[in-house]
């Protein structure tokens, strides 16, 4: 069974003027297969930085700590190597790639992840099935990746990829943002199907508790000022719903 270990991770972001701004200040977190961890925190607390730095986005510089997937040094890998090792990042703002059809993109990604091309005989059905389950018209397979997709369609497309690529660890960065209630339910069901397989660890980054009504976390971590300040079970999410982040913020120096 797979395990993702994040140890004392420090990360800075590169600013346009070349200077660096520290964002993560020592994050420790272990995500095992079949577990769902929710990371909750206010805007600007570094939740997305955690997601993107694990995936290897070049904007972020690791200044200390370790990320290990089944003992292998993730930080030494290129972005594509991380994905092939079993990491998946569902992005908050999926990128448009003109000229590349969804079908071609997904087949290429599946081939890269699996190390061999999917069987033609079953792949079409698998693709259509995944899209249909996420409420995406299979005709979208012929459209260019994310081009002209609504916010909700982009998020559904991310979860289609999650289902098809079957990662060891999936990081979902604010997948719930911008979704109406029906889309939230459909997307949550997609995440739950992957969880039910029991092989995938899920790191669910969210601002709000509403997705947690559909995707029940095993652990909840409160993230403030670049680190985890409190941890607990699902009941912690309910407490946050009632009390907000205010008391953590005042503890961290107060809201500006």
């Amino acid at each position, binding site marked *: 069974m797979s395990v993702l270990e994040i140890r004392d991770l420090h990360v800075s972001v590169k600013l346009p003027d070349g200077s660096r701004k520290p964002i993560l200040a020592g994050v420790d977190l272990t995500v095992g297969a079949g577990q769902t961890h929710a990371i909750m925190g206010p805007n600007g607390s570094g939740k997305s930085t955690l997601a993107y730095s694990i995936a*290897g986005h070049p904007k972020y510089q690791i200044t200390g700590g370790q990320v290990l997937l089944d003992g292998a040094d993730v930080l030494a890998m290129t972005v594509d190597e991380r994905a092939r090792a079993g990491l998946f990042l569902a992005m908050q703002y999926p990128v448009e790639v003109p000229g590349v059809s969804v079908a*071609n993109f997904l087949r290429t990604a599946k081939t890269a992840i699996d190390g061999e091309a999917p069987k033609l005989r079953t792949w079409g059905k698998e693709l259509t099935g995944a899209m249909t389950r996420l409420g995406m018209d299979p005709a979208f397979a012929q459209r260019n990746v994310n081009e002209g997709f609504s916010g909700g369609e982009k998020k559904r497309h991310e979860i289609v990829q999650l289902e098809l690529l079957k990662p060891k660890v999936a990081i979902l960065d604010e997948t719930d943002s911008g979704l109406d209630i029906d889309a939230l339910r459909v997307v949550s069901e997609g995440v739950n199907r992957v969880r039910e397989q029991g092989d995938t660890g899920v790191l669910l980054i969210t601002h709000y508790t509403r997705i947690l009504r559909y995707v029940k976390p095993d652990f909840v971590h409160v993230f403030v000022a670049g680190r985890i300040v409190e941890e607990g079970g699902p009941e912690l999410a309910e407490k946050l719903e009632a009390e907000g982040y205010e008391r953590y913020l005042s503890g961290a120096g107060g809201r500006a």
Partner: protein
Amino acid sequence: MTATLAHSHGNRTGTPPERFTSSDPDAFEVPTGREEEWRFTPLRRLRELFTPFEPTTRITGEVSAPEGVSWAIEPLSPAGVLAPADRVSALALQRAPQSFVLRVAAGARLDDPVLVTGVASPGIGYEHMVIEVGERAQATVVVDYRGSATIAENVEILVGDGGSLELVSVQGWDADAVHLSAHAARIGRDAHLRHMAVNLGGAVVRLSPTVHFGGPGGRADLIGVAFAGPGQHLETRLYIDHDQPDCSSDVLYKNALQGDDARTVWIGDVRIRPVATGTNTFELNRNLVLTDGARADSVPNLEIETGEIVGAGHASATGRFDDEQLFYLMARGIPEAEARKLVVRGFFAELLDKVPVPELHDRLVATIEKRLAEVAGGPA
């Protein structure tokens, strides 16, 4: 991807000036680079073409032609379709030592494409070609150039009434070649031309396709594919003259650029004259900039002199393959080289899928992918 609309609109008021043409080379000044028609072109790389010279090379090669096609090398014999619009074209039309003439008999329906493979050895030369498709004939012709030379060329294309020609012009030159070529087509009544320009090789290639109509009901589809590598200048100057009623034209040119000083220029002039009622025209230029240091210029112009048309439009978009797109594809396990290939293949697919000869299609795809794999900033 960020898309920018960077183009100027044609002047739609008053009467536009006639495009100046002359068969007398001296009617054109030697350009200084400030002229509108030369301002994008690296003149210092083609100085020798602006004065008359004695040819030291010519394009030779092979012709593979099915029944219904005849071809010959004749003394210089202009077909009267092309009116030179610049000094190099005028010099070439005056001084080419011979004409390569390809004729498709009236009513012929060719079983196979005509393949013209032209190879030039180093030197400087003038060329003249005539492709004549008879009434109601249907033909596919591929003109495939390679080698290393400096060539000034004129190509005259005649499609007879009710005829149909699919012409693919491949500039697959070696990295040091210079090629200036004017293609002029006359499309007969109810006739159809699909003109496809593929610009891959050469240091400087400047292609000027011109279309006018010999009767109503004609249709012109002009498509182009270009891949400019480091230091390469690939320029297209289109002119479609809607001078007959009820004709249509559709233009789609796509350029990809990679490497330092990779350069493409696309000028698309469409004119709809007062007589050309019922015209339907659309032109689109898309450029994909793969690396910093490359530059794509795009200038579509539309002059509409009658309101009684079906439609007229143009668009131009230049996009960058950026770090966010690369990250997204790599975050799905796709290696960087594969990601670039995916994007470029997708960009060109709708055009390359129209290449009528499968072997040529495969070769062009392979050539583009090979060029893509060349390290940006390395030799072209």
